[in-house]
């Protein structure tokens, strides 16, 4: 058994080395397939993460009249925290609101000056409410509109947020549909090119396969080296892909993080390095093996 295994491996290795040009072309095609596969996976992660980050920024802010005492606002906060749909309720006092506003407007000296001229804090205390899911915002709004503390409010700031949420939802769904369609298309094209390249490589050996059959070699003995070759192509292509993607992540990730803080592409990649490698190796080896298996079938029939 070991002897046969060693010979099959040796035969496939010799074939790769002696037909190095064809082997190189095949590895390149498998590499492009695997690169497409993993590239789409990482792109999909980035888009989903971006959408989640934007969704996390959405909230409902309810602003209280200035004369409402803090104790009453805390009661409302407790009441809201008791609702199933609500994830967090954060109290922002008048002073906190002013600090936040000043922070945001620090590069706008005119507004900064205007507040100084007023001499008082014009901002209202508020509660910032985050729902558990996007769909919960509407029911929270409905609750607030019928709540007993409704009269103590100056305004409920959600409409703008609602538009953002709705747009995000549409963008998220569209991106997912487009990403899935492009993934299926690109991976499909890559698999087809890959299949044809391996089929061509096997076609060049069809006379040899026939001669092997006629000297009484069993099918597994003939198939073995080709399947080994398919496996080697998949593993080499996967290693090449990891090298290229690691370099890309290393080079691009700091720039992306500057533009979109918190995206965490590099963190995700390194944390899942082994899984990504295994997954894409299984993909690469899988298409190599399947292509070899199907392409050889008709030459083994006699």
């Amino acid at each position, binding site marked *: 058994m070991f*002897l*046969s295994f060693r*010979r099959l491996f040796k035969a496939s290795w*010799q*074939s790769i080395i*002696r*037909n190095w040009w064809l082997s190189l072309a095949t590895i390149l095609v498998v590499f492009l397939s695997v690169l497409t596969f993993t590239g789409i996976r990482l792109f999909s992660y980035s888009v989903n993460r971006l959408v989640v980050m934007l969704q996390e920024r959405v909230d409902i802010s309810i602003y209280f009249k200035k004369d409402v005492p803090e104790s009453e606002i805390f009661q409302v906060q407790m009441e809201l925290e008791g609702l199933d749909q609500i994830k967090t309720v954060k109290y922002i006092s008048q002073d906190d609101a002013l600090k936040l506003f000043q922070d945001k407007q620090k590069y706008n000296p005119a507004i900064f000056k205007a507040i100084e001229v007023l001499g008082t804090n014009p901002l209202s205390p508020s509660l910032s409410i985050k729902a558990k899911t996007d769909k919960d915002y509407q029911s929270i709004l409905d609750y607030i509109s019928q709540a007993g503390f409704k009269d103590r409010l100056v305004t409920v700031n959600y409409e703008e947020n609602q538009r953002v949420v709705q747009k995000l939802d549409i963008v998220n769904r569209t991106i997912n549909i487009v990403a899935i369609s492009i993934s299926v298309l690109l991976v499909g094209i890559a698999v087809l090119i890959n299949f044809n390249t391996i089929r061509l490589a096997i076609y060049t050996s069809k*006379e*040899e396969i*026939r*001669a*092997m*059959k*006629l*000297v*009484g*070699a*069993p*099918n597994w*003995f003939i198939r073995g080296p080709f399947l080994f070759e398919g496996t080697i192509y998949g593993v080499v292509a996967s290693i090449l892909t990891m090298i290229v993607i690691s370099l890309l992540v290393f080079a691009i990730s700091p720039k992306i993080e500057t533009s979109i803080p918190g995206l965490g592409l590099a963190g995700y990649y390194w944390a899942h390095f082994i899984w990504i490698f295994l997954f894409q190796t299984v993909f690469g080896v899988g298409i190599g093996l399947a292509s070899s298996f199907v392409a050889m079938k008709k030459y083994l029939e*006699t």
Partner: protein
Amino acid sequence: MTSLISFKDISKAYNNNLVLDSIDFSVEAGEFVSLVGKSGVGKTTLLKLIIAEEQPSSGKVIFDGQEVNKLKGSQLSLIRRRVGTVFQDFKLFADRTVFENVAFPLEVLNQPDDIITDHVGEVLKLVGLESQRDQLPICLSAGEKQRAAIARALIHGPDIIIADEPTGNLDPINTWDIIKLLLKINELGTAIILTSHNKDVINKIGKRVISLENGKVIRDELNGQYII
């Protein structure tokens, strides 16, 4: 006594074109048989029937008591391992050296490396290719390629070698060298079926000659001649 190979009432048609018509003859162990006839008369088809590369339209091919055209998979592989096949176009494995080509049937039989090395060395000596053992087929002359193909057909000690126009691509000197080699192998006990157009060669061999015409056996003579 059972014949090594028997063709029993074999007919073969391709698209209603009858190539072989009620062929009946047997080949005994250790025999040398030349199959002669014009191109398209069915010589190659007869050889292909022995290794089940083709199936007869009717009739039976019996190899050592087993009906070849009913065998499948591993049983067929076992029969093929008892036959050495030599083709006009050699069919050597292009990316393997002469040694590796000749060793292939022994690898199929899962023989250990030391036995393969010894045995291939002996057979390469027999066919006169010891010095070319590490060459790829592309580096060999046509005569050398055919010697390598014969060595590969011979290496696993088959009961019979079927040689389909083995001299068809060779010059007269190489042709006669190959025929002498086949005669030598036959003297060592292996049956040979040779197809050829070459009247001079067949007449010099002086063994059994089976002549085909219009898909039928028209002559079957020991010490026969190729008569056109």
